[in-house]
C-alpha cells in the first residue's frame, strides 16, 4: 500500500473547474479539483523491462494544472485511463533491478509510454526514433495513457511508488541534486522545442512566456541554436532577471511585446477593428510557451510572413487568420524524442550555472499538503519560484 | 464619497486659514509695494435702513443690546430736552473714546429718535468684511464713511436727505488716552451743506469703562455720563472753517458742564477759560491716569430728574 494523489472522474468538479479554474485557482485547489489523497496498492506491471521505483521528487507541470482545472481540451480524454496518479516529471530510485540498472539507481523518467514500453511492435514513429510521436499509446501491456502520470497502470510521480519501463529511464549522474534532476525532463522538452523551431543562424526569436517552459526554451535556443536576438515576454519582475540570465536578449512585458518586436524588426503595425493589432513583418520564429489564447495570438501576430510559430504550451483556440494570410508554419512540439538525444543534452544543460542556480528555488511539498502545493504552483510567476514539486518521502 | 467629503473639508480649511476668513486679508510683506491702490471693497449698507432691517434692529437693540449694556455699565443722561424743541434730522457730534460711545449715544436717545439715527463708521474698519458690515449695520445702523476721503456707495448726505439723523465722531477715531483729539471738518461740512443743526454731545467715562484695545467693558458697572447740548446752526454767511470750531467748543463746554455745573461752565466759557478738552500737556501716563477714573455722579436735585428720561 502507498500514499498517492489520485485524479478521478467527477463531472461536477470538472465542470466547476472549467467554469472558474482559470480565474480562481484558489477554489480549484480547495474544492473543485478532481484530485484526492488516497492509500492504494502500489502499481505493478509484471512485464519484462518494467521495474518499481520509489519517487524522490515529482514536479507539477503546467499541463497538470490545466488538467486539474478542466482547461485541457477533451481531445486528451481518450488518451488517459482514469483514475490515475499524475506526475510525469519524476526523479526516483529503483526499488529492484531493472535489466542493466541495479536497485537503488537514481533515475529520471522519460514519461512517454512508447511501443517499447507497451511491448508492441514499433510503430513508424518509434522506429524512426520519434518516440514522442508513438501511435500505439492506448494499447499494449499497460492501459491507455500518453505518458506516465496519465496512465492507470503505471502510477505517477505524485505517489510514493510508480513503475516504469527500462526504455523510459535515464540515469542521473553523480553530483546532481534531486532538484536539478527534476528539471531534466522539462529541459528535455525544451531541447526538443529548440530543435523543432528550425532556427537559422541570426534569426530573431520571440518566446512568449517566461514560466519554466519559456525559460528552458530560451535557454535551449540560446545553447543549441544560432538564434540572434531572443525576445522573451515576461509578466513578472523576477522572470525578467531569469530570462536574461538564461540567454534572452530582451525581456518585455506582454503589453509591450508587439511594439517592441515592431521596433526591432522595422515592421508595420496595423490595428484591425474590434481586435488586437498585429504586425506586417516581425520575428522569424515565435515560440508560444504558455498556450493561452492571448499568448498564441501574440506569437501569430508578431511573426513575419513565412515565419514559424512553435506551439510549446498546450494551445487554446485562437484566431488563425495570420497563419493563413502570412503563410506561417505552425509547428507543434510535444515531449521529447529519443532520436534527439534530448535527455542526454538536457542533463548537460541543467548542469549550467544559471540552471543550477534556478534549481535552488524548487519548492517541494509533502503529498498531504497538495492543496498548498497546487496553489503555489498556480502562482509561481508571481511568487518567484520556477518549479513546485512533491516530495512523497517527506511527511511534513 | 467619504474621501470626497474629507477632501472638501481639508480644502475649505486650507482656504479659510490661508485667506483668513472673517479677518482682514493680509498681503505678504514683500508684495506690499506691488499692491494696487485699494479699490474700496465696501459692502453696501442701504438695506440696513429699510423696513425689515429697522424691525430687526429694534429687536436686537431692545432685546439684546440694551439689557447687555445696562448690565455692564451705569449711565446718566442729561440734556435730552433739546430734542423736544427741534425736528430731525440732526447731526450728533460727539467726542470719541471707546466702542461704548455708539451704544451709549443710541441707547440714550428717545426711541423715536433712536430709530431714525444712523452712525457714521469707518469704512476701512467696519465694512471690510461682510460679517462685520452686516453686524454693525444691523445692530448700530452704521453706514460707511471713508476716513481718507474717497467715494462711497452711500454718502452721508443721502442718509440725511432721507430724514435720518447722524451720529458723527468728528475726531475720526477713538482717542488714545481718553482726552479729546482734533476735530475734523466733516460734521460741520455736512451741517453747512444740508442745513441741519448740529447737536453737540459730550460723554465721559467710556474710556475708563472700555478703552481702546479692550474687548469687553471693565467689570464693576462703571459710570458713564452723557450730555446733549443746544443745537448749533451755521450763521448766515458763516463758513465751514468758522463753524467747525464752534462745534468743538460746544462739546468742550458740555464736558466742563458734565464735570462741574452748568453755571460754572457758562462762566468759564464766557471768560474763555473752559478747560482744554485735549487735556493737560503732561506725561502720557498722567493723561491716561486722569481718564481712567470714572465720573463721580453726585446725588442730584430730584427736580432735575425727569422720570420719562430715566434709564
Amino acid at each position: 500500500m502507498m500514499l498517492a494523489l489520485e485524479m478521478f472522474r467527477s463531472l461536477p468538479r470538472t465542470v466547476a473547474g472549467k467554469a472558474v479554474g482559470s480565474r480562481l485557482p484558489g477554489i480549484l485547489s480547495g474544492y473543485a479539483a478532481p484530485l484526492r489523497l488516497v492509500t492504494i496498492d502500489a502499481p505493478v506491471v509484471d512485464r519484462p523491462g518494467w521495474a518499481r521505483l520509489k519517487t524522490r521528487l515529482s514536479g507539477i507541470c503546467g499541463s497538470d494544472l490545466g488538467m486539474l482545472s478542466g482547461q485541457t481540451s477533451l481531445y486528451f480524454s481518450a488518451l488517459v485511463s482514469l483514475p490515475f496518479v499524475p506526475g510525469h516529471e519524476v526523479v526516483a530510485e529503483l526499488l529492484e533491478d531493472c535489466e542493466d540498472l541495479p536497485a537503488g539507481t537514481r533515475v529520471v523518467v522519460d514519461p512517454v509510454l512508447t511501443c517499447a514500453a507497451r511491448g508492441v511492435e514499433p510503430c513508424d514513429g518509434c522506429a524512426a526514433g520519434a518516440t514522442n510521436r508513438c501511435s500505439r499509446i492506448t494499447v499494449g501491456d499497460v492501459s491507455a495513457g500518453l505518458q506516465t502520470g496519465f496512465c492507470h497502470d503505471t502510477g505517477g510521480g505524485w505517489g510514493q511508488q510508480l513503475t516504469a519501463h527500462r526504455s523510459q529511464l535515464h540515469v542521473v549522474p553523480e553530483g546532481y541534486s534531486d532538484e536539478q534532476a527534476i528539471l531534466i525532463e522539462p529541459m528535455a522538452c525544451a531541447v526538443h522545442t529548440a530543435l523543432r523551431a528550425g532556427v537559422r543562424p541570426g534569426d530573431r526569436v520571440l518566446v512568449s512566456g517566461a514560466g519554466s517552459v519559456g525559460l528552458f526554451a530560451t535557454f535551449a535556443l540560446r545553447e543549441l541554436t544560432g538564434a540572434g536576438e531572443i525576445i522573451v515576454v515576461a509578466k513578472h519582475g523576477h522572470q525578467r532577471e531569469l530570462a536574461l540570465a538564461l540567454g534572452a536578449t530582451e525581456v518585455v512585458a506582454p503589453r509591450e511585446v508587439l511594439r517592441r518586436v515592431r521596433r526591432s524588426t522595422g515592421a508595420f503595425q496595423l490595428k484591425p477593428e474590434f481586435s488586437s493589432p498585429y504586425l506586417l513583418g516581425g520575428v522569424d520564429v515565435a515560440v508560444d510557451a504558455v498556450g493561452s489564447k492571448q499568448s498564441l495570438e501574440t506569437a501569430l501576430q508578431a511573426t513575419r510572413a513565412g515565419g514559424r510559430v512553435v506551439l510549446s504550451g498546450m494551445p487554446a483556440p485562437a484566431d488563425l487568420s495570420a497563419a493563413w494570410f502570412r503563410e506561417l508554419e505552425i509547428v507543434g512540439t510535444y515531449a521529447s524524442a529519443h532520436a534527439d538525444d534530448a535527455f542526454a543534452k538536457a542533463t548537460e544543460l541543467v548542469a549550467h550555472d544559471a540552471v543550477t542556480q534556478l534549481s535552488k528555488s524548487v519548492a517541494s511539498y509533502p503529498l498531504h499538503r497538495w492543496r498548498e502545493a497546487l496553489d503555489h504552483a498556480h502562482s509561481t510567476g508571481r511568487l518567484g519560484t520556477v518549479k513546485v514539486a512533491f516530495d512523497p518521502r517527506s511527511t511534513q | 464619497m467619504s474621501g470626497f467629503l474629507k477632501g472638501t473639508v481639508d480644502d475649505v480649511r486650507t482656504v479659510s486659514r490661508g485667506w483668513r476668513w472673517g479677518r482682514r486679508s493680509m498681503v505678504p510683506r514683500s508684495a506690499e509695494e506691488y499692491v494696487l491702490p485699494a479699490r474700496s471693497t465696501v459692502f453696501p449698507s442701504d438695506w440696513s435702513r429699510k423696513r425689515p432691517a429697522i424691525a430687526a434692529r429694534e429687536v436686537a437693540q431692545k432685546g439684546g443690546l440694551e439689557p447687555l449694556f445696562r448690565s455692564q455699565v451705569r449711565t446718566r443722561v442729561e440734556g435730552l430736552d433739546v430734542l423736544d424743541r427741534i425736528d430731525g434730522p440732526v447731526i450728533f457730534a460727539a467726542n470719541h473714546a471707546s466702542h461704548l460711545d455708539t451704544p451709549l449715544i443710541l441707547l440714550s436717545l428717545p426711541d423715536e429718535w433712536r430709530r431714525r439715527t444712523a452712525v457714521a463708521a469707518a469704512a476701512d474698519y467696519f465694512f471690510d468684511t461682510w460679517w462685520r458690515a452686516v453686524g454693525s449695520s444691523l445692530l448700530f445702523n452704521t453706514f460707511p464713511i471713508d476716513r481718507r476721503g474717497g467715494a462711497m456707495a452711500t454718502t452721508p448726505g443721502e442718509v440725511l436727505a432721507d430724514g435720518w439723523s447722524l451720529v458723527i465722531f468728528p475726531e475720526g477715531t477713538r482717542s488714545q488716552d481718553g482726552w479729546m483729539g482734533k476735530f475734523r471738518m466733516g460734521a460741520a461740512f455736512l451741517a453747512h451743506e444740508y442745513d441741519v443743526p448740529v447737536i453737540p454731545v459730550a460723554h465721559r467715562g467710556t474710556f475708563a469703562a472700555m478703552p481702546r484695545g479692550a474687548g469687553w467693558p471693565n467689570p464693576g458697572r462703571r459710570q458713564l455720563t452723557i450730555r446733549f447740548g443746544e443745537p448749533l446752526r451755521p450763521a448766515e454767511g458763516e463758513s465751514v472753517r468758522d463753524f467747525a470750531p464752534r462745534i468743538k467748543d460746544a462739546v468742550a463746554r458740555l464736558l466742563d458742564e458734565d464735570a462741574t455745573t452748568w453755571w460754572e461752565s457758562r462762566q468759564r466759557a464766557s471768560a474763555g477759560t473752559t478747560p482744554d478738552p485735549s487735556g493737560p500737556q503732561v506725561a502720557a501716563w498722567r493723561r491716561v491716569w486722569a481718564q481712567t477714573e470714572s465720573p463721580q455722579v453726585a446725588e442730584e436735585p430730584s427736580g432735575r430728574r425727569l422720570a420719562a428720561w430715566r434709564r
Partner: protein
Amino acid sequence: MSRPGFVLEVDDRTPPLVVHEGLGFRLESFPLGTRVVYPPESLPTVPDVDEAIREALLHPVDAEPLPSLLFSGMRLTIAFDDLSLPLPSMKSPDIRGRIIEHVLTLAAEAGVDDVEIVAANALHRRMTAGELKHIVGERVFRSFFPQGQLYNFDAEDRDNLAHLGTTEQGEDIEISKRAAESDLLVYVNVNLVAMDGGHKSVGIGLASYKSLRHHHNPQTMVHSRSFMDHKKSAMHHSAWRIGRIIKDTVKVFQIETTLDNNVFGKPYDFLMKREWEWSVRDQASMLAMKRGLSVAPQKLRHKLFHDLRAPYGLTGISAGEVEAVHEQTLERVHRQQLVEVQGQSDVLVLGVPYLGPYNVNSSMNPILATCMGLGYYFNSYRHQPVVRKGGAVILYHPLNEGFNQLHHPSYVDFYEEVLAESTDPAVISAKYEKQFAEDEWYRHLYRTSHAYHGVHPFYMWYWAAHAMDHVDEVIWVGADRKVASRLGFRAATTLQDALEMASGTVGSSPSITYLHNPPHLLADVR
C-alpha cells in the same frame, strides 16, 4: 494698468499658493523664505488689431512694404507656426488667421495667383483640418484647403525638399522645396516665448530631420544656456547660421506677433491672480474647481482643461527683415515676461501644467512632462539658471496620463525600450536616435496619420539635457513612482518629503525658488 513681475518672499502672511500639476493644481504652503517669482501682469494690448497689422505690412522694418513685393505671376508661399503655439490655443479668431487674411488681401490686389499656405510643423504631427481651420480662419481655410493649397509641411517627402547647401560649420540646410523656390516667403509667427521666432521660424519650422539633427542634439542643448536667450543658445546660433543662408536663397518677409499674459479666461482667471488678492468669488471658484476635479474622471478633466481657449490679446506686431523684426519682438516679449531675480537658489520648484507645445488636444505623457519641466520651465532664464549647479529641481506632475497612441507612437517605444536602457541623453542619442528617425513605420505615421516624427521623443529628452546636466537631484511631487523611476528620477508625495529627499544634496534648509508659471515668465537671474 499692468504691474511688473516681482519676487515674493513667503512669510507668515502668505496664503497657500497655486501649483499646477497636470490636469489639476494644488495649494501649496511653501516654507517661509521661499522665493516665488510672479510674471508681470498683462501688458496693454493693441487697440485696433486690423490697423496694427496693416501698419506693420505697409511700414515694415528694414524691408520694402509688402505690396511692393507682390506682383502678378509670382510664387507666394505663406508659412505659419503650427498648433504648438500659442499655449493654450487662442480664442478664435487666431491672430495668424487675421494676418494671413491681410496678406492675402494684398496679394489678391496685386493679382498673385500662385499662393500656397504651409503649416511650419517640421517634425510635429500633422494638424487635422479642424485644427488648421482654427488657426487660419474659415475664409482662408475654405479658399485654400479643398484645393490642397493649405497643407501641413511634410519633412519626409523627399521630392519636395530642397537642399540649400551647408553652413560654414557643415550643417545641412534642407527645407521645404516650395518655400525655397518661392519668389516671396511670408512667415506668420506667434512669439509666445523668447525662444520662438527669428531664424528659428523658417530654418527650423520648414526643415527636415537632415537639417534639424545638427542643432537638435544633446551637445548643442547642453550648451544652450538658455534656449530662451538666442544670443547664448547654441541651438539658436546654428539656426541663425542656417537662417542667414536661407535668406540669401529666398526672400523672407517675417511677421512676428507678441501676446499678453492673459492665459486663463473666466472663471478660471483666479489662476493668474496673485493669491493674496483673491476675492471671495475667486476663492469660491477655486474651491469649486478643485473639488470638481477631485471627483471628475480623468477623461473629463482632460476635456475640461483642453477645451480651454486663452483670451490672449495682441501686444504688438512687427514685420519685415527677420533679425530686425525679431529684435523688436524680443523687446516686447521681455517686457511681458521678464522678472529680475537676485541670485540662484539651491532648489527650484516648478509646477508642470496640463499643457505643453506637443500635447495640444493630446495627453501629457511622462516624456512631455519632463520636457515641459526640465526643458521649457527650467530654461526660462537669462544669464544663469535659477537653481545653482548641483542643486535640486522639484517638479509637480502625476505622470499618469499615459501615451496617446495616435499622436505619440514613437514615444511609447522610447519610454519602454530606450529609457529602460539609459536615461543619459548622449547615450540615447548615439545608440537609438538614427534607428527611430529612420523607422519606416514612424515615417509612415508621421506622413499619413497624426503622429509626431519617430525622432521627436529624443528631442524632448535633449530639451531636458541642460537641466539634467546642471542639477543633481530631480524629484517629482505627487508622481507615479514607477514612471518617475523609469525616467531616472524620484517621486515624493508632498513637498516636505521631496525636500527631505533632497536634503542629501542641498542640506536641510535650502534656499528655494518657485516659478509661478503659467502665465509665462522669464527669470532674469543676476
